[in-house]
């Protein structure tokens, strides 16, 4: 019997809000899906769309991006800049056919440990339903063989 599919999910979070929220989820002893690998960054403004592409390139089935609610940014407006960038990037992903169900965005504050745990669970569940990102994985496999010219 083959093992059930466990999605690999990468979460890019800002250190001041969502990472602190994750910390709160931990100290509150909330359980959430172990499929999520968190990468901590100074601010959502630091999250380049390259990170999302890189995560997919390295075989992630889903990507989460999360930071402070608007108005709460430690650097006053990093998340506003990030929001514009995501709007554009999402349109680009959609137009090139990368399913938007696999790249999710959220605001989670340092006080929202429960929201964090819930969000991780629901996203893991969604992506488990979608299954592995086969389209992209085929492209990854191709890179392991010498290029055909």
């Amino acid at each position: 019997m083959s093992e059930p599919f466990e999605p690999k999910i990468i979460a890019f979070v800002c250190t001041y809000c969502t990472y602190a929220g994750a910390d709160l989820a931990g100290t509150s002893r909330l359980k959430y899906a172990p499929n999520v690998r968190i990468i901590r960054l100074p601010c959502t403004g630091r999250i380049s769309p390259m990170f999302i592409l890189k995560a997919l390139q390295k075989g992630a089935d889903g990507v989460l991006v999360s930071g402070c609610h608007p108005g709460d940014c430690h650097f006053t407006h990093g998340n506003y800049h990030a929001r514009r960038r995501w709007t554009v990037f999402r349109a680009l992903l959609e137009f090139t056919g990368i399913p938007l169900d696999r790249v999710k965005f959220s605001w989670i504050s340092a006080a929202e440990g429960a929201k964090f745990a819930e969000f991780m669970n629901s996203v893991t569940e969604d992506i488990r339903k979608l299954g592995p990102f086969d389209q992209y994985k085929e492209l990854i496999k191709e890179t392991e063989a010498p290029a055909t010219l």
Partner: protein
Amino acid sequence: MTIQEQYKTRVRELLSSGTVKMVIGYKAGTTADRRRPLFIRTPEEADQLLLDSACIANLSGYLIAEGLLSDEKRVGIFLKPDGIRTINILAAEAQLNIEQIIVLGFDITGQEVTALQGETAGDFSALIESIKEGAPEALKNPLIDQLEQLNPKERFAYWQAEFSRCIKCYACRQACPMCYCRRCIVDCNQPQWVNTSSHTLGNFEWNIVRAFHLSGRCVGCGNCDRACPVNIPLRLINARMAQEVLGSFDHLAGMSDTQEPVLASFKKDDSETFIL
């Protein structure tokens, strides 16, 4: 007097009076329907100048060649409205001083070339404003609509087929007046963001990254499209991004030399329906 002769006279005047040190225009190319850039430094060289409906390339990329404008002398350049928008963007991004540029404006409708009145980029602001009014219509493209009807899988397959032809020659980057980074992200290998071999994955990423970097900056001059040796419809993806930026942020690139770049500015009430 034809428009070509009018402009030849004007170029000679500009050069002989010392107003500009150089004029960038067009001359005959290798075939009858191709044009080459011409860099005119003396009034005599203006004889080679051509101006007709084949002069479609956006020449503004030559303005940011290293050192060209650093002596603070003026340079004249033949530009269509999209070229004027381009130098507005370059000025807004602090790549050039717009006062150093003398614009020889022209426009092409069908086979006809018409002169645009004005000398500096600012003189064309009324024309540029009217472009924004017409932009929602002008950016429409039947192929974009067709692609949006498909499901993501089919769209992915479409772009995969298109990008699989890419040979990563970076001609699109070289031809684009907006691609002026001294160190492009694909030239960095610590970390290696994009696969550099011509596998489809790396091609896919390269074209996504370029489209993202041009979002809210591309004027749709089509230099990349024409430069692509394998005919990837690059302008299509850039036009879709321009639609998005116009729809979401009411921004059309290159309206003025002081316009804030769309991804370097924000409004507190920008839409965020997709954020959970």
